[in-house]
């Protein structure tokens, strides 16, 4: 059974407003089967992480962060400073010490 996973979570571009205005967090996810006993896979991926974030961190208006089982349009997800599309998006398996960043795109000028 896979062990717990430590992550650096970062929020920016306004996304932090949904998370108590905290831009940087260190989190430790428990073993996946402990958190999702019925889960069919062993390792945390981003899809699982989004559920965990919704359950544990998201304070208000989840529709401003999530849409379906993914993030809403206009939020860029970065895995260690690279677009999550380069790593399989929702299916990316989280590694210990990964930095996962959620950046709302800005449109002001």
């Amino acid at each position, binding site marked *: 059974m896979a062990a717990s996973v430590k992550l650096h979570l970062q929020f920016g571009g306004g996304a932090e407003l949904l998370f108590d205005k905290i831009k940087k967090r260190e989190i430790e996810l428990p073993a996946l089967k402990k958190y999702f006993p019925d889960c069919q896979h062993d390792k945390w991926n981003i899809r699982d992480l989004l559920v965990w974030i919704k359950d544990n961190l998201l304070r208000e208006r989840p*529709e401003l962060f999530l849409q379906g089982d993914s993030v*809403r*349009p*206009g939020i*860029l997800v970065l895995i260690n*400073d690279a677009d999550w599309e380069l790593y399989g998006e929702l299916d990316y398996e989280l590694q210990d010490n990964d930095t996962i960043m959620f950046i709302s795109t*800005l*449109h*002001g000028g």
Partner: protein
Amino acid sequence: KVYYGDKLPKWAIERYSRQILLPDIGVQGQEKLCAAKVLVVGAGGLGCPASVYLAGAGVGEIGIVDYDSVDLTNIHRQILHTERDQNTSKAESAADTLRSINSHIKITPYTVQLDSNNALGIASRYDVILDCSDNVPTRYLLNDVCAIAKKPLISGSALKMEGQLTVYGYRADRNHNEKDLSHQGPCYRCVFPNPPPAEAVGSCSANGVAGPVPGVIGALQALEAIKLIVGQTHEKLLVGRLLIFDGEDVTFRTVKLRPRNSQCAACSESPTITRLVDYEAFCKAQAKEKDLDLQIL
């Protein structure tokens, strides 16, 4: 005219000497700058610093688009407008200041709301487009304009204490310094195929902005335009990279974006967007900044 070297007159060599001295610019780069045409969309917090450095650098033609007029609340960050310019056209006010800085270049103000009917006509007169706008529909409009007209789009944004910057729609085939002429950077739709929900979008009038933040991003937009014009290759430009600036603690990071999407509706080989659409309908939002409700103060 007396020419010095091949094309540049002696006055230009002297006037622009501080940048001609740079190995990355030189006399050849200055010739390219003097021949370049740049369109700046938005004469606000980003467009003012961006256009002032382009005018200073001697970019031959600068177009500046803004439908709005100068408001007193703009002046803290929109540095081409003075108190006397209140209620006059922002595009005209910006153009007047730019002309006072450089009388050797052509400045064209456009006091229009850019839309699907006029955008291609205006943009096609220029080589490079700067997105200094303040709303989502205009950002998608400009992306599609640049995809259709095959122009690079230098896209800046700023809100509160944060800023973002990248170059969309870069095509190596316009730059003979590139080794791989087939390289193309992503466009805005490659990265953001769908617009954000309107209620998730902040604006400078509703959420505020610290003046120097668009100042930093706008100056960097001018720098990227200058580098692009003189022929810097995509590795040196913010192509496929997004700069994220947080003024709260002065942190900058550059993150890697996804490559161009070969299925992109706008910039792929077989695009589904072949003419401009109704961007206010697509984004379910108006192509103007959200207004501040002063009651909240």
